[in-house]
């Protein structure tokens, strides 16, 4: 006799998702799937479109991280048209990008993921939301979160035209620079941002790290996977969101690969399962061995924790201090605890704010030299950024007139898909025993993947067509044992 527990919808998740947990006759977990029912068909849609439209089209994959798609797309166009932007344009892009990262991370820390820790993993469901967070941290802080986001978004709108769909990045530069009289406001907001990020670290320490139960939860085997980690690094192997090389470290922390995004196909392949539309990227040179961790399995992880693990530090002072404290407290590098993503995200908030401030103060940032024009015939362009949720790759191929013939996007949630599936199953197995569970336990299973901040609106864009309204769940032998409608 088989029992099924369904957690649906997953609360506070960007996009759609469903978890299916199958219990055996003793009430223990036999298998847990994290199903992504949404299908987007984006690559098919963009075929035949002019390549220069891609930075405007791709942010519309979803309303969650448009700036990441805009920037990856813009960089793919630089590569497509073989044009290097002038230094001021690169700095402007990086500044806007760090503003976005700060704002997006803040949203997750306080609103999407924060409730699990700030309010508490075992608190009642109706209390585990942003209102619960406000209750816990106080009204003033709540106001600070809202106003900080708003101020950053206003400046992003000033610079890039729109927050959600910037019309700004072009091959070889940007369409609008920063005026000297505007800079003052950027510096002011950046300074507030640094203060806000440092304050967030304090909140995290006071509420999360001072609570023994939470720290044990972070370190528990339930939320631990020893996988490879991937992230962009600068020339000094420090975390960089906007540019650099892709670095991969193995589960023991040794550098496994350091490569330019143009060579990503030599390093990354994709595995397909019949129970989900999401593809599972893995390290080609290690191979796909299934949903298992360890050095012999090609499963890797992206997102804040992976970025910290894959780097040798942060490029700004306060973030570096927080980085050192992170590894000192957890006592090991790499850190394999999924829930440490939340802490890593706060450290990245500090870096994003400090980098925003550095760039806002940079004398070159108000230069008029913001674009180089290409004279090359396009063929292939590949761009990469670190989206809040991890490494994001845009790969375009065009005819000689610049019309898209092929597009491939590897989005952050895809990069994490295998590890998310593993986390969900492991959490389910660790937390449901002999048929006993309560709402708090089920939330803790959700916590396993919420830590990755997955976004499925763009995670399943790689096949053409409609949303499937029926999902087949199969047993180990491939037999369908259940059919699920998603409405």
């Amino acid at each position, binding site marked *: 006799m088989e029992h099924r527990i369904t957690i649906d919808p997953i609360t506070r998740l960007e996009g759609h998702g469903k978890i299916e947990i199958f219990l055996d006759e003793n009430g223990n977990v036999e298998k847990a799937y994290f199903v992504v029912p949404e299908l987007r068909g984006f690559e098919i*849609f963009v075929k035949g479109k002019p390549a220069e439209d891609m930075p405007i089209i791709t942010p519309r994959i979803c309303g969650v991280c448009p700036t990441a798609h805009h920037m990856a797309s813009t960089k793919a166009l630089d590569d497509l048209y073989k044009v290097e932007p002038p230094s001021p344009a690169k700095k402007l892009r990086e500044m806007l990008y760090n503003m976005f990262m700060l704002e997006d991370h803040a949203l997750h820390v306080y609103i999407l993921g924060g409730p699990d820790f700030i309010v508490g993993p075992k608190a009642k469901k109706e209390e585990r939301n*942003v209102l619960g967070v406000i209750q816990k941290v106080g*009204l003033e802080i709540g106001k600070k979160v809202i106003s900080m986001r708003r101020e950053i978004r206003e400046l992003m709108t000033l610079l890039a035209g729109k927050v959600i769909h910037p019309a700004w990045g072009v091959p070889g530069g940007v369409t609008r620079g920063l005026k000297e009289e505007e800079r003052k406001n950027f510096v002011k907001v950046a300074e507030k941002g640094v203060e806000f990020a440092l304050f967030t670290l304090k909140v995290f320490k006071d509420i999360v790290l001072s609570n023994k139960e939470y720290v044990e939860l972070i370190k528990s085997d339930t939320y631990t996977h020893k996988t490879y980690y991937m992230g962009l690094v600068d020339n000094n192997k420090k975390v960089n969101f906007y540019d650099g090389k892709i670095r991969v470290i193995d589960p023991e922390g040794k550098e496994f690969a350091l490569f330019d995004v143009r060579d990503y196909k030599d390093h990354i392949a994709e595995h397909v399962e019949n129970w989900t539309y999401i593809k599972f990227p893995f390290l080609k040179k290690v191979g796909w061995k299934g949903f298992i961790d360890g050095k012999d399995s090609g499963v890797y992880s992206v997102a804040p924790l992976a970025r910290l693990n894959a780097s040798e530090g942060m490029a700004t002072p306060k973030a570096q201090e927080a980085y050192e404290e992170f590894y000192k407290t957890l006592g090991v590098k790499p850190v394999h605890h999924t829930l440490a993503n939340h802490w890593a995200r706060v450290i990245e908030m500090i870096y994003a704010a400090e980098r925003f401030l550095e760039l806002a103060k940079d004398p070159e940032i108000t230069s008029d030299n913001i674009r180089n024009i290409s004279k090359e015939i396009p063929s292939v362009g590949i761009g990469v950024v670190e989206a809040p949720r991890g490494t994001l790759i845009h790969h375009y191929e065009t005819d000689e007139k610049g019309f898209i013939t092929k597009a491939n996007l590897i989005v952050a949630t895809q990069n994490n898909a295998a590890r998310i599936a593993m986390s969900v199953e492991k959490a389910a197995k660790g937390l449901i025993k002999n048929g006993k569970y309560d709402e708090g336990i089920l939330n803790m299973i959700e916590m396993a993947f919420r830590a990755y901040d997955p976004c499925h609106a763009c995670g399943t*864009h790689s096949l053409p067509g409609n949303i499937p309204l029926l999902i087949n769940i199969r047993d180990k032998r491939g037999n369908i044992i259940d059919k699920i409608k998603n409405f």
Partner: protein
Amino acid sequence: MIRLKTFEKKDLRKKYLILGLGNTIRGDDGIGIYLTKFLEKKFFNLADIISTEEMGLSLLDFLSPYEKAVIIDSIFTGKKDIGEIYIFKEKDFDSKQIKSNHYIGLPEISKIAKKLKIPFPKELLIIGISVEDPYTIKPELSENLKEKIPEIITKIEKLIRDFLK
């Protein structure tokens, strides 16, 4: 591509807002944005008409300055009731679970605003248009929904006029 209006200067802002939500490259999901284009001609002297593809907490920035707001979005019921109009008030969100990406967080936004004493419309009218396919990536509405647009506009125009009285 539909140009979005923003009203940055307070003195130009009206008391009421008509906010169209959706994604115009996701088939019928764009209905809220298409409709605001028609409604602009009818309500330009009474309300600010804005379209956005944003969702969640970001909607607070749009809604905050207004006394009353109308939100128009697609709704996918799974029934064959394309073009049917569903009306919701803020209180409905406590009891109804609505399948729309864009509503995620709307009741929370309202509560956050109240809790943090951020200005927020005293009254919301949420108009859900039942659609056939809000998931296929295509830049136009389905034929079945297109046919219904004149009828939908007539109905929602009356609803909005009554609400904004």
